[in-house]
């Protein structure tokens, strides 16, 4: 037998469902201010004010302990909040990374002081985090990164450069992966460590990189003799690779891996109206809805496994590969179905959302690990 995957249907429990109406009402009220261009940004839309409002409602750090500002709610309650926000294209980027990755990492491996310093601020929606992984010469081959942190009197000195870090120019803190121990010759995966880096620290230069939409989401960050205290080390020295990898099943299987283009679909249905007699349109819409249904089930199933302590990395890779494939197909297909011009025109939400998404969808199968990396992980699990 090759890989037997553990996918089984999972229904959101009633206690978590009870939250849905409240979130939906909140989102609908907020959504009236969002343009089509904005909703198309989904979890890469950066709006600190929205994050603070969500923090006030207790919808950030939902599962974390109350003593760190969390709300000790279930993972499924959190899932309901996430999917309601994403389905509407809410600009949740100012807290997304902290809520999804950085916070859970700090909670798991951080010192008591680190937890006390960062977690309550994240829960209030006031601490925006970014992840410093890629470097100019280390993309998919991440373990070959070269930026280094050296021990110095009282702490660490960082030198090197990180690239493609989303919203570094607007964020407060980066969790960055740096070489601390062995050189690459000892095995690429050894000797890497994670650091909590206040982005206001002297010696850090953040250079936004304009992307093909004309906006600047990602950045190049130069570290030039940046001095950090002892307390900047995150978790165990030289264990950073394993630490960074443990989060991947979470990162790759959430609703953000299949809903990035979803806001287009209700807009398209509204434009098409309820009396469509073209069967090919019905087939296209039906196929999209079937795929969304299956991906949601896969994502929920993984969430449920993660809750019970499993690490379904294969299943997460499959879900990401299929999910980002759907996200990428939707903009072009929907533009064709509604025969809409992808352009920015005030008040025309569908055209604006299409204009943005058609330009950025190529990034969906890059971020969080490329399609090729996902296939490599899946093939390895199959015994190839």
């Amino acid at each position, binding site marked *: 037998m090759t890989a*037997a995957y553990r996918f089984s*249907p999972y229904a959101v429990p009633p206690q978590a469902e009870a939250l849905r109406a409240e979130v939906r009402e909140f989102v609908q009220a907020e959504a009236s201010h969002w343009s089509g261009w904005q909703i198309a940004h989904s979890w890469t839309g950066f709006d600190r004010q929205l994050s603070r409002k969500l923090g006030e409602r207790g919808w950030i750090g939902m599962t974390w302990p109350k003593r760190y500002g969390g709300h000790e709610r279930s993972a499924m309650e959190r899932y309901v909040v996430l999917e309601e926000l994403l389905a509407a294209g809410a600009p949740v980027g100012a807290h997304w990374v902290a809520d999804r990755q950085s916070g859970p990492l700090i909670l798991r491996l951080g010192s008591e002081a680190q937890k006390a310093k960062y977690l309550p601020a994240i829960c209030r929606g006031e601490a925006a985090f970014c992840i410093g992984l890629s470097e100019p010469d280390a993309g998919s081959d991440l373990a070959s990164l070269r930026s280094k942190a050296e021990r110095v009197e009282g702490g660490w000195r960082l030198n090197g450069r990180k690239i493609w870090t989303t919203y570094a120019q607007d964020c407060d803190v980066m969790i960055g992966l740096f070489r601390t121990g062995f050189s690459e010759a000892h095995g690429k995966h050894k000797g890497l460590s994670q650091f909590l880096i206040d982005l206001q620290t002297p010696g850090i230069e953040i250079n936004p990189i304009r992307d093909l939409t004309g906006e600047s989401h990602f950045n190049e960050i130069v570290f030039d003799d940046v001095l950090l205290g002892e307390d900047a080390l995150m978790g165990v020295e030289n264990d950073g690779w394993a630490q960074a990898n443990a989060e991947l099943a979470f990162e790759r299987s959430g609703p953000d891996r299949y809903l990035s283009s979803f806001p287009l679909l209700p*807009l398209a249905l509204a434009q098409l109206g309820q009396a469509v007699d073209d069967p090919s*349109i019905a087939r296209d819409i*039906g*196929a999209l809805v079937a795929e969304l249904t299956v991906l949601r089930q896969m994502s929920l199933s993984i969430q449920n496994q993660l809750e019970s302590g499993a690490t379904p990395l294969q299943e997460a890779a499959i879900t990401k590969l299929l999910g980002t494939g759907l996200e990428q197909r939707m903009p072009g297909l929907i533009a064709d179905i509604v025969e809409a011009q992808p352009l920015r025109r005030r008040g025309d939400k569908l055209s604006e959302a299409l204009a943005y998404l058609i330009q950025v969808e190529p990034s969906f199968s890059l971020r969080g690990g490329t399609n090729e990396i996902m296939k490599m992980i899946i*093939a390895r699990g199959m015994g190839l």
Partner: protein
Amino acid sequence: MSELNIAELLADQLEKLLAAEVSAESLAALENGTGNRALWQHIEAMGVADVMCTGAEAAGLGWQECAELFRVLGRHAAPLPLAETLLGRRLLSQAGLAIPEGPLALVDADISLDDAGCLQGAADMISWAPWATAILGIARRGAETLLFSVAGTAVSAAATELHSLERAPTAAIDFSGMTPQAQAPIAAEASIREQLAVVRALLISGACDKVVELAVEYANTRKQFGKPIGKFQALQHQLAEASCRAAAAEMAAKYACRELDQKQPSTGAAVAKYTASVAAREVSRIAHQVFGAIGITDEHELHYFTRRLWQWRVDAGNERYWSGQLGARVLAAGSAQLWPSLTA
């Protein structure tokens, strides 16, 4: 013992029986008409064909509990009408009709019952009809929905033998003018077409798993350019894609089972059969690409699975049919209902 344990135990027993009894030889014998029904007697002796029957004395296992049974049948390309019989006996028990001995076949066609008590309508393809002791279908009479049954022996004159891709005993039958052997009103959880679609999706999911397994085994042993072809990334990526399709088919089929168990009108069947039919198409395509010429030969076992995938893809509605059905429902419900129905 809990019901799930009974179901797991049966799936395990069935897996062992089929692993021992089903081979390229027995499949070939079935397909060239020389197969015997000894295996069916084993199945009857196991009692597995009755487990979905409802009622006081019955096991009454649900769809989710039986999902693995169907997947095991698919994994082995089982030369048996067990899937149809499981479903048929469930329908008979739901309608309160007596259950005849022997295998059943199911009609997926629009049939009506006229005022004279005669059936009207034809089915252009019924798998396993030549083996069936009774053939079941749903007939409309005015606003009524009736389950009807006709004896296998009664239809031979109206039956035309067919050779499907599956090469199981199959026939087209014109029921017009026949009087049912039995009939009764039925309130089933879904139409026969929907239930058959979910059954086919489960069979497809089992067969896809098997085909992916065969392809991986072959890729790891067949050497070209001095190394196993499975070491080439081009093949690894194709097999990874096949595995994704198989996983999606399994998820979709099991989701539909849960929907059927909850007896709500749902999109489960459409989601399951659309996803499984796409998987059937893509997994068989990739497997044949990996196997190369040997996979096309009669001698190699691959075709026993891929021909069934091609047949099951179109049985009870192909991916175009079901995406069309689902899309029409989504469009008619309107934009505001989309997200609420996806999260319902």
